[in-house]
């Protein structure tokens, strides 16, 4: 190790003319031994004043202990970084300096030469940049926005962490145009690429939307806004832009569309309903008014036989109107919640229904089987019974000449459907879609208004379920299937209920 050089032989001229503030101090007393003009200019103290001061005099009092520690540590060291220090100028301003210190001898005694760059401005700018960068980063994150910068010359794309997050990629994931294009939904890629090409060709800003598929399979809607950056010659060299996640807005718009369609459907259904009702109420009224006209004629002509027959027609038509009005009132009540839904046993409801149908069931000698272990459902118990009364009642009504009439109430775990199956006359597949329509009767001779299955369908749908009919045709029986929401508490099925756990 070479001995420190002597200040006097090597440095005086450089020291005096150098623009960076410098000083030489005594590491024992901390006294200034020499200061250069730049030091004088930077701090406002004269050379004479400095020579009467120690290093501690320039520091804020709270930094003095650090100074002592530092000087002790570096006393024997060669050239070293001395770190950043706050200096108070003579005028009270605080500047920040970055110091390097270097051992030498001064007047034959060990000393240290210090160079101190004023970094006040640089640190202030750095701080502002950091604050600005953080502000943009936070705002981007809060806005669900990611930033990208595409260098056309190198093909490199710089993505910020927020953008990587939008695409479901780890922060700092290396991205090229290819990776971006692969992430974009194939249906949206042509338009998105055309938009980017348009921005490059026109050198202007553009906005467009597309969907991306994340590695985890999730699809997000992104809105992109970007602009072209040109060099001095006007050539586009970079494209810089942002992506904002607009998935929620898209979902909301889709939901709005769905509701509009639903309302339109409901309006159309209501209109059909009103016309159907008016048609079917008018029908018996035409009979009543028509035969009333004939009653007078028959009476005047003394044709009492026809009078009685026509009177019977009028009476039947009036009764038909009463039934229609009753059923319509019942139908109108279905949509309203009569009893709040609760966990209810389908087997019990089916037993109640059979009890209510005891008359017709006995009259026709129908065997009704309720499959054991039916799962429980979450439904309005009164409405559930109504559904089963209608379905079992229909099965009993349309038995035809079946010698061993049988109705089975059961559950199919395969499609989660309850069913009411009979071995009666069956329904031709051509009419399966029509059976649930209001006032639709496949057999005009059968009693009833044609509202029963419309009520059943409405009840099931109000509960969020589905109903359909299965029948291979006439003579092979009919199976009505329906779904209802499962009981809230699982395993609520009847004793031994094996099907309960299979309920979807």
């Amino acid at each position, binding site marked *: 190790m070479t001995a420190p050089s002597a200040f006097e032989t090597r440095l005086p001229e450089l020291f005096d003319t150098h623009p960076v503030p410098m000083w030489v101090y005594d590491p024992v007393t901390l006294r200034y031994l020499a200061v250069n003009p730049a030091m004088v200019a930077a701090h406002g103290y004269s050379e004479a004043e400095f020579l009467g001061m120690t290093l501690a005099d320039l520091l804020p009092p709270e930094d003095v202990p650090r100074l002592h520690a530092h000087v002790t540590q570096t006393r024997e060291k060669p050239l070293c970084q001395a770190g950043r220090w706050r200096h108070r100028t003579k005028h009270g301003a605080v500047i920040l300096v970055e110091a390097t210190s270097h051992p030498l001898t001064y007047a034959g005694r060990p000393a240290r030469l210090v160079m101190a760059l004023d970094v006040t401005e640089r640190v202030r700018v750095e701080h502002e940049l950091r604050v600005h960068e953080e502000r943009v980063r936070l705002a981007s994150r809060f806005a669900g926005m990611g930033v990208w910068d595409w260098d056309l010359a190198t093909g490199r794309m710089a993505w910020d962490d927020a953008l990587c997050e939008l695409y479901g990629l780890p922060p700092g994931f290396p991205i090229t145009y290819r990776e971006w294009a692969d992430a974009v939904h194939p249906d949206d890629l042509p338009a998105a690429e055309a938009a980017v090409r348009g921005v490059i060709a026109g050198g202007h800003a553009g906005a467009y939307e597309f969907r991306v598929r994340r590695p985890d399979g999730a699809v997000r809607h992104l809105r992109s806004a970007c602009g072209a950056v040109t060099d001095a010659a006007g050539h586009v060299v970079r494209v810089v832009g942002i992506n904002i996640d607009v998935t929620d807005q898209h979902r909301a718009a889709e939901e709005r569309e769905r509701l509009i369609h639903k309302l339109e459907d409901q309006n159309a259904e209501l209109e*059909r309903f009103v*016309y*159907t009702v*008016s*048609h079917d109420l*008018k*029908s018996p*009224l*035409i*009979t009543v*008014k*028509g*035969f*009333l*006209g*004939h009653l007078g004629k028959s009476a005047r002509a003394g044709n009492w036989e026809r009078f009685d027959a026509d009177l019977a*027609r009028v009476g039947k*038509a009036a009764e038909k109107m009463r039934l229609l009005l009753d059923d319509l009132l019942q139908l109108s009540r279905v949509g309203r919640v009569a009893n709040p839904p609760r966990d209810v046993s389908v087997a019990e409801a089916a037993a109640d229904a059979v009890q209510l149908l005891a008359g017709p069931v006995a009259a026709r000698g129908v065997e009704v089987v309720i499959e054991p272990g039916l799962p429980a459902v979450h439904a309005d118990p009164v409405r559930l019974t109504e559904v089963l009364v209608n379905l079992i009642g229909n099965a009993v009504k349309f038995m035809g000449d079946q010698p061993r009439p049988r109705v089975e109430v059961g559950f199919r775990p395969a499609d989660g459907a309850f069913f009411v199956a009979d071995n009666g006359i069956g329904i031709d597949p051509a*009419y399966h879609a029509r059976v649930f329509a209001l*006032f639709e*009767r*496949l*057999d*005009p001779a059968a009693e009833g208004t044609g509202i029963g299955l419309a009520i059943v369908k409405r009840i099931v749908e109000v509960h969020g379920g589905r109903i359909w009919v299965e029948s291979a045709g006439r003579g092979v029986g009919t199976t009505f299937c329906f779904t209802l929401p499962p009981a809230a508490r699982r395993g609520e099925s009847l004793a031994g209920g094996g099907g309960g756990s299979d309920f979807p």
Partner: protein
Amino acid sequence: MDATEHVLLLVEDNPDHAELVLRCLEAQPARPRVVHLTDGEATLAYLTHRPPFADAESAPTPDLVLLDLRLPKVDGLDVLRAVKAAPGLRAIPVVVLTSSAAPSDVTGAYAAHANSYLVKPLDHDRLERMLGDVGRYWLGWNRSPDAVPSTA
């Protein structure tokens, strides 16, 4: 009006309404021969001379069809479409006679080439007048092409 007896096919599933229409037609001076069917399936079988309507003598091709819309088995509109799609049948005037005043039914009937759409009036007198007019117009004034095979 010539002496040939006109054949009117009444398709009506409501027996009371059918009876009212029949009485109105009977009251008319030129009573047509009326064939009454109650569902769409039978109507199509009749018009295409399928069993049990294969005999042209007992099941003559009608000069006019009075067609209700809500019919069991095959709907009135489907009957109408089938008739108007069949080259040998499409010239037969089909007058829809229904109690439905729904715009969708009117539009649907004309889209299926109905020749006329009539809503059954509530009053018996008006029904009688309406059917008198229908008979006078479609079986009296109206000319159908000779290509339509007649009973003669």
